[in-house]
């Protein structure tokens, strides 16, 4: 099984004290300065939609967002183009990219946003590659765990597939027993 087009979400802990619209300015600066490794091309502000995609730094290879899908704020990294390497490489990389963005956003809005140091979500944004069913988890579990362990630097964590509605994308919620550092590369 090939895992591509991964999405990592790092949830915001507690209340979001910043105005999410302030991310628009930050993301414009990211585009102008080509701050991130991927080429960013635009900023989409979708805060008028409840429980929606929030503010997105739209990129060619990947998007970054202050995301509110499902009603909970999170820092999101969404890989759009395929990546080389193993599944575990890609899992580690997507978490590291979200983590790097989270570090920049926390630094920009110091004290107003705190990203979780032990919870994360990984989504496979491709139903053809990874339909949301138990067989997918069975096939992907080892690679997911290897990649997550590489990102965390340890194996003391749990992951749980988010089954239920087969229409939704395959995803796992993860929880690390130890806190991890934001901004660390894989």
């Amino acid at each position, binding site marked *: 099984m090939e895992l591509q087009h991964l999405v990592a979400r790092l949830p915001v802990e507690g209340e979001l004290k910043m105005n999410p619209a302030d991310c628009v300015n930050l993301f414009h600066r990211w585009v102008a300065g080509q701050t991130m490794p991927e080429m960013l091309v635009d900023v989409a502000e979708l805060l008028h939609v409840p429980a929606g995609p929030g503010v997105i730094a739209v990129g060619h290879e990947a998007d970054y967002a202050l995301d509110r899908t499902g009603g909970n704020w999170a820092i999101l990294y969404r890989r759009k183009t395929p990546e080389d390497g193993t599944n575990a490489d890609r899992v580690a990389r997507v978490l590291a990219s979200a983590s790097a963005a989270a570090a920049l956003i926390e630094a920009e809005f110091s004290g107003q946003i705190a990203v979780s140091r032990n919870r994360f979500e990984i989504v496979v944004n491709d*139903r053809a590659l990874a339909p949301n069913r138990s067989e997918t988890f069975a096939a992907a579990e080892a690679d997911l765990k290897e990649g997550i362990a590489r990102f965390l630097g340890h194996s003391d964590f749990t992951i749980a597939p988010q089954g239920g509605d087969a229409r939704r994308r395959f995803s796992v919620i993860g929880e690390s027993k130890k806190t991890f550092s934001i901004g660390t590369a894989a």
Partner: protein
Amino acid sequence: MKASNPLWKNLLAGRIAEPLASEIDQFETEIELRKQGKIDEKVFAETRLRRGAYGQRYDNGQRHDGTDSRKLPFADKPTKGPGTIWDAPGMLRIKVPFGGVTPEQLELMAEVAEEYSDNIAHVTTRQDFQLHFIHIENAPALMRRLGSVGITTREACGNSVRNVTGCPLAGVCACETFDVTPYARALTYFLLGHPDAQDFGRKFKPAFSGCADQPCGLAYMHDLGVIAATREVDGKVQRGFRILVGGGLGAVPRQARVLTEFAPVEELLPLAQAISRVFGRHGEKRNRNAARIKFLIDKWGIEKFREEVFAERAKLRPDPRWTDYLDAALKEAEKPSRPGADLPAVPKGNERLARWVKSNVRPQRQKGYYTATVALPLGDITADQLRDLADIVRRFTAGTLRTTVDQNFLIRWVSGADVVALFEALEAAGLGDAGAGNIFDITACPGTDTCKLGISSSRGLAGELRTRLAAKSFTMDQAIQDLHIKVSGCFNSCGQHHVGDLGFYGNSRTVNGFRVPYFQVVLGGQWENNAGAYGLPIVAIPSKRVPEAIDRITGFYLEQRQKQESFHDFIKRVGKAPVRKLLDPLAENLPSPEQDPGFYNDWGDPRQYSIGDIGKGECAGEVVTRYQFETTAAERMVFEAQLMLEDGRAQFAGEEAYRAMLRGAKALVQMQYDDVTDEPAEIVQEFRERFVDTQLFFDQFAGPKFAAYLFDAHAAVGRKFTADLAHQQITEAQLFIEAVHNCHNRLRSEPAKA
């Protein structure tokens, strides 16, 4: 691009109808050939447009980042069309004929919005869906997935027959003549890919309405407007249509004209075919600015156009498809899934429910059943909400749902007994907003968010107005609650600003040496009567002062309104002059950027607005003063022309609009040639030589279109003006003066040409 792209063809084999499946295969091949340089870029551009793959802002690889216009570091690849970067994200428009959409289609939209776009599906003013930030190489897989649930993007863009829109209440409306749904569906699939509809110079938009006096179908603003009608023949009621042609918004709007007062239903498809043939053969092809069917009708007159259409109709070979569907059409009827019941009284204390029922729920013609509008903010809905909506529609109905031209959804066939439970389900999904059709249910085109033609942020303004007005709208007078606000990011009117009670379209002005986002205030439009009247711009005001402008206009309306007078009638009675007087102070005296930088950026965008247009120090102040003086006078003259038209003095109005254009042209000529006189011939000649022959006046997209307005008016001096013609001349004069401003801004920001 997506790793799974090759998989979908096999996964969906046999589930996509022909010829759609083959056409998508062809498009995939054409993408590959373009990558190899074996298809010309212009040909490929039209090819992708006819497949619904549209350009998006920054697709030329340039982006203004707040200090300068910079290149985005896209890879060096073939282009998708002239000046269009291969890898730049684009928009995909998805046709939804007459707005009819099933729960399965909603679920599929959710999937593709998540996997290929930004998790949002956007409902357009023509009942389509749009997805943004789509990569061209993902388009075939996306189209296959859409095709597997019966959706096509074919001919959603380009010079083709666009989505056939229709009244979302068709079949359930108490005032309709009959249900137009089967006829709209038949026309959709008859013209889709029809050989007679493949050689247009421009797009062709059809719309159906079940009745003449309601706005739901907006038949009068379409290239082909079809309104249900009946007549009695030998004691029997015969179904047919009033057929309109040549309507359209765009920069210079036209009301459609009557092709025939009654065409029996059997004649609908052959007449549409004949119209297509006449348009395809005689419509303008080289100058796209004069290529819509309305210009052909202008040129010929409706009588000659009608003669040609009926002559062409007489020559057509009979086609069984013209009538094959008719027997089924008479029998076709949606059915409810649950027994009907009257709407129960709303429990006391549930204010949200009460508001929602009042604004969003409407009784159907069929007793015991209701429609419920799902009001979407700016036409946007998330993937999760699409799935929730699919579940809700299945739970309460037999899957009966439509998109609307107000950028909302309409659930049909809801039993009165289920209305409260429906509301609760919608609320849980974040879809229970009240206020459908209310003043804060604002229509807006994508504007500068994603459209490369956008000048000012229409969605930004609409979002701001929505927030402000929603907070207080339910305490407003009902007359204010019922107003319609329509916002376009430029004069092209995708936000339908011409037919709103309060219309706005984006432009800009240079103030204190900086460019400032402005909106023209458009008054006099009418949403009712199938978009029965078009408004005219009265004054341009800074974008950030539009909320204040709305407060002033609505306050004035409430103060001066007579009894139950509608806003449209009110404006007709009092005229535009007193409104202009109210707004004039807002147009001027902007604080400096140091005092209030907010005026110098747009809603929701902290970048300094078009800072590349800074012209400080490049022009002598004296010249600027004279320029401003002249263009201000030109704008005043256009407004005075409107007042003359209101007074019924069409001849004076048309002539004054022409003189306003001369004044605007003179303002530019004086920048190069101080001694130009007031002699019209000299102004026109100097303007032509200095600004048109040199292409200085050329619009980036429209080319010499706006200059042609002056030249045409000058060449036609002495003609007789009807009210319609004067209306057109005033609109053109306003656009010409906008173009003067744009040219002036460009010249001030660019080094002088040798």
